[in-house]
């Protein structure tokens, strides 16, 4: 059987080739089952009401019920082989309550029984009461009006799950072939597709039905020079998006040409894999960077991660207050700095906003996981820290009465808590292209794509790598560098920002796997920016021999 026949067969509905690693509490299903509509909203409402009534009957002063159906498809290939195709479905009900002033949570999988949901609610109340002996102050929840029966859906032009698996496998194997033909020794490719069908109901009187889609095409190309023992990799320049399969349909404006092609609202995997293979080969011969101070020009495909780590996490109020101290850490951006109204988080060029409504972003939803309507707000204005990200049980600590709507749980089986909203760097106000920005740089490095990343537990000292490093000399790109990483601390770095390109260059980056909490949960979040310049940043050489 030739490859085309394999993939045609796959298109009928393959799942779980080889031994899959299945997400917790999910079950493998056929591809067709990903298209089944799931429970009728009236059934969900009955189940939710059973939970809400049971919780309040047992003494809960607040309760919410989340009924979640989480659908995933992963298509994984390596060179000319399909490594794995996994379709999973996870369905269940999570109930969160406040009783004796304390949170309690319990969850149950795969049920459509009102009695079982009611028992789960009672269990959550029992947990809250058992743990309340350790509660110092009762939970103070910001008031929230009920929205009645409402719904929200990601704008989907082409549903990923309606596309035959054959078509996806063909695309991935074609990209792999392109990489191999252009100098790669190895290539791994993964296409992640996610659909979260979430129903939320609370004692506030909300019944919210949401249908969230996300996609991430992602590869790693490896080039090996056995003689020297060197290896070089280049990851895809795609961004995970709050979109569906339409992200893989590229129109001319989606490509930004330059030293390499970068992508905006559409992504061309074949073109990027071809470039990646050539660039991985070039990296093997690139000049090893000289450590020292360099001006950095950072592409949105790179800087989103610096934003995520140094601004996104630092301004989560739960961290600022100490609730994440045991794992994720606290934050240098303490309340006194915010209260001072003059803390220079960055230079005057630096404006950050949070936005849970940005179309195409990973965090784009209508309501958060505690029934709050999503919105946009400022975090840093003209370089000054002006606000945090907070949820219903925290906003009173900021003297506010309304949550910002950034509560999220990664499953029906996990409790919702404060997670990062899309945090983005606003484009510069003056017209400025990337080429114009580079023209002014005497000794600099233009970094594209994300690499290794690490930041301390108060989000201060950090180190970032990247995918592509181009040396800038007297306003010109003169060649490629390798072994590059830069170190700085958050405040110094953002205060060294001297220019940000205008909105024509604004693009989203992001991650599917933002981790936080105990037990650990993941969160999908986007970060937008235009290319930005930072002067005099400390660059180190990461080359080693063992």
């Amino acid at each position, binding site marked *: *059987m030739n*490859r085309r026949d394999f*993939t045609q*067969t*796959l298109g009928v*509905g*393959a*799942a*779980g*080739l*080889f*031994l*899959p*690693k*299945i997400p*917790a*509490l*999910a*079950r*493998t299903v*056929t591809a067709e089952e990903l298209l089944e509509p799931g429970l009728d909203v009236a059934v969900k409402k009955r189940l939710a009401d059973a939970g809400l009534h049971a919780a309040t009957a047992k003494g809960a002063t607040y309760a919410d019920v989340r009924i979640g159906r989480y659908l995933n498809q992963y298509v994984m290939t390596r060179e000319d082989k399909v490594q794995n195709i996994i379709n999973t479905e996870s369905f269940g009900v999570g109930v969160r309550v406040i009783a004796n002033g304390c*949170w*309690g*949570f*319990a*969850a149950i*999988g795969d049920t459509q029984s009102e009695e079982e949901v009611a028992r789960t609610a009672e269990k959550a109340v029992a*947990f809250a009461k058992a*743990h*309340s*002996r*350790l*509660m*110092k*102050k009762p939970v103070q929840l910001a008031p929230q009006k009920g929205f009645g029966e409402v719904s929200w859906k990601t704008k989907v032009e082409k549903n990923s799950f309606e596309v035959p698996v054959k078509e996806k496998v063909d695309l991935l194997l074609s990209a792999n072939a392109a990489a191999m033909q252009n100098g790669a020794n*190895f290539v791994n490719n993964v296409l992640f597709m996610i659909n979260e069908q979430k129903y939320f109901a609370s004692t506030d009187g909300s019944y919210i039905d949401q249908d969230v889609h996300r996609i991430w095409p992602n590869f790693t190309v490896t080039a*090996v020079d*056995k*003689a020297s023992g*060197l*290896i070089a990799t280049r990851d895809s320049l795609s961004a995970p998006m709050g979109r569906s399969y339409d992200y893989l349909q590229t129109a001319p404006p989606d490509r930004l040409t330059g030293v390499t092609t970068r992508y905006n609202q559409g992504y061309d995997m074949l073109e990027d894999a071809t470039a990646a293979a050539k660039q991985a080969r070039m990296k093997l011969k690139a000049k090893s960077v000289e450590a020292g101070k360099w001006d950095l020009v950072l592409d949105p495909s790179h800087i989103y991660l610096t934003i995520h780590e140094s601004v996104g996490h630092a301004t989560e109020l739960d961290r600022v207050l*100490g*609730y994440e*101290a*045991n794992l994720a850490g*606290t934050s*240098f951006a303490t309340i006194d700095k915010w209260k001072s109204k003059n803390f220079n988080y960055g230079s005057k060029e630096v404006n950050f906003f949070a936005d849970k409504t940005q179309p195409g972003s990973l965090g784009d939803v209508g309501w958060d996981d505690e029934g709050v309507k999503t919105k946009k707000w400022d975090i840093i204005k003209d370089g000054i820290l002006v606000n945090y990200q907070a949820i219903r049980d925290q906003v009173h600590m900021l003297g506010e009465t309304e949550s910002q709507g950034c509560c999220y749980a990664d499953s029906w*089986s996990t409790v919702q808590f404060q997670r990062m909203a899309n945090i983005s760097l606003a484009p510069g106000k003056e017209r400025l292209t990337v080429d114009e920005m580079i023209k002014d740089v005497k000794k600099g490095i233009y970094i594209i794509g994300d690499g*290794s990343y*690490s930041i*301390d537990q108060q989000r201060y*000292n950090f*180190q970032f*790598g990247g995918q592509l490093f181009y040396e800038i000399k007297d306003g010109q790109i003169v060649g490629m560098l390798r072994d590059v990483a830069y*170190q700085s601390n958050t405040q110094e770095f953002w205060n060294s920002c001297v220019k940000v390109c205008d909105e024509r260059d604004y693009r989203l980056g992001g991650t599917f796997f933002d981790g936080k909490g105990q*037990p650990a949960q993941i969160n999908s979040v986007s970060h937008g920016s235009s290319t930005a310049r930072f002067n005099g940043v400390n660059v*180190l050489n*990461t080359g*080693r021999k*063992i």
Partner: protein
Amino acid sequence: MAIISQAEAKKILDKVLSFSKADEMSVSLSGGRTSNIRYALNSVSSGGEADNMSLLITAGIGKRMGSATINQFDDKAIERTVRRAEEIARLAPENSEYMPMVGPQNYLETPMYSENTARMDSEYRAQVAFDSVDACEQKNLSAAGFMQDTTGFSAIANSKGLFGYNKATSVDFSVTVRTADATGSGYVTRDFNDISKLKTRSVTGIAMQKALASTNARALEPGKYTVILEPTAMSTLLQSMMSGMDTRLADEGRSFLSKKGGGTRLGEKLLDERVTIYSDPMNLEAPSEPFASEGRNRTGSFLGGGGVGDGRPQEKLTWFEKGVVKNMSYSRFWADQKGVKATPPPTGFIMAGGDQSLADLIKSTDKGILVTRLWYVRMVDPKTLLQTGLTRDGTFYIENGQIKFPIKNFRFNESAVIVLNNVEALGAPIRVGGNLIPPVKARDFTFTSLSDAV
């Protein structure tokens, strides 16, 4: 609670196999309960429990494979899932790396289960957290901690007569203690199979002591220093090294075990001769899974329905002996290609140490830095195992055999291979994350910048 006996598990697995029409079929069944309590600012912040049991069925037809899972156990549901796995196998492409399933194996009965842990309830859990919080409150310190316990089992079988069963419990506890003015922070973590070994009040005392001693930290210049990496810190560096023991990756030139010009570094002396690392599922202090595990680890959840590997038994095996690469792991396909035994990767590891205590290591140090914990450790270069990260929650300067003063945290850029080449002394191993790891004193550890974070 979703934990069943060996006999009950075998009955379910035999039933699954009786429905099979495939050339080959393997089944894994796992289940259990995972519970937790979390606290911060000396107050409980969340807690809960979940339990589940799940069956994963894999059908092999020719060189095609298909899998399906289910968490219902009536005959109809099981048969429907068997048919689904077979249908998926028929639709799948042939796998050129397909390996026939293995026959019956001898599995060790590892000492991973404790009835004390299995019996734990939410009142006990609340008391464990209270003991930690109360100790801190009495000293005007702030505690943020987490405890998770699991009780579960896994069982495997296939149509070639293989059967294995294992039940296990685990408890993981950690706490970060901070001073009221937020200028000092200390950390401790412990994990056991048996909850009765966990004494949170006394263990929290270690983190309290570090928090109080770490206030008013001074800045030292970044550079190369002799370090004493406590087991919690050393564990982080070792994890990456031990998860990179795969031969195929090395043969492909992509690993720290790749030889320049091709091949692997098996048999080469790569580390200091005092370094011996082995795995032993029967170790009483840190036992591990009897069969190669893919679906979970000892400290993870039993709830996933993930597979439990391909049935290869785990046994005592030395990976590094006196610094020499003694064994590497192979997938069954790669072992077949190379004509060698298909050694699975370890599910736990033990690094041999000495008899010296941490205090002894400090006493024997002229100038050096004591590191409690490493944080946000990320690979910078997999070929050299160069990693970056930071110290955290208790970093101290040592001079003339004594801790002189707390120092600000450092960022490091270093490779575990280099650290284990520069060994000065090893202490007595303790259990961290299911592994046994000694404190390691090593020279020339590279710190590249300072962090003001507390």
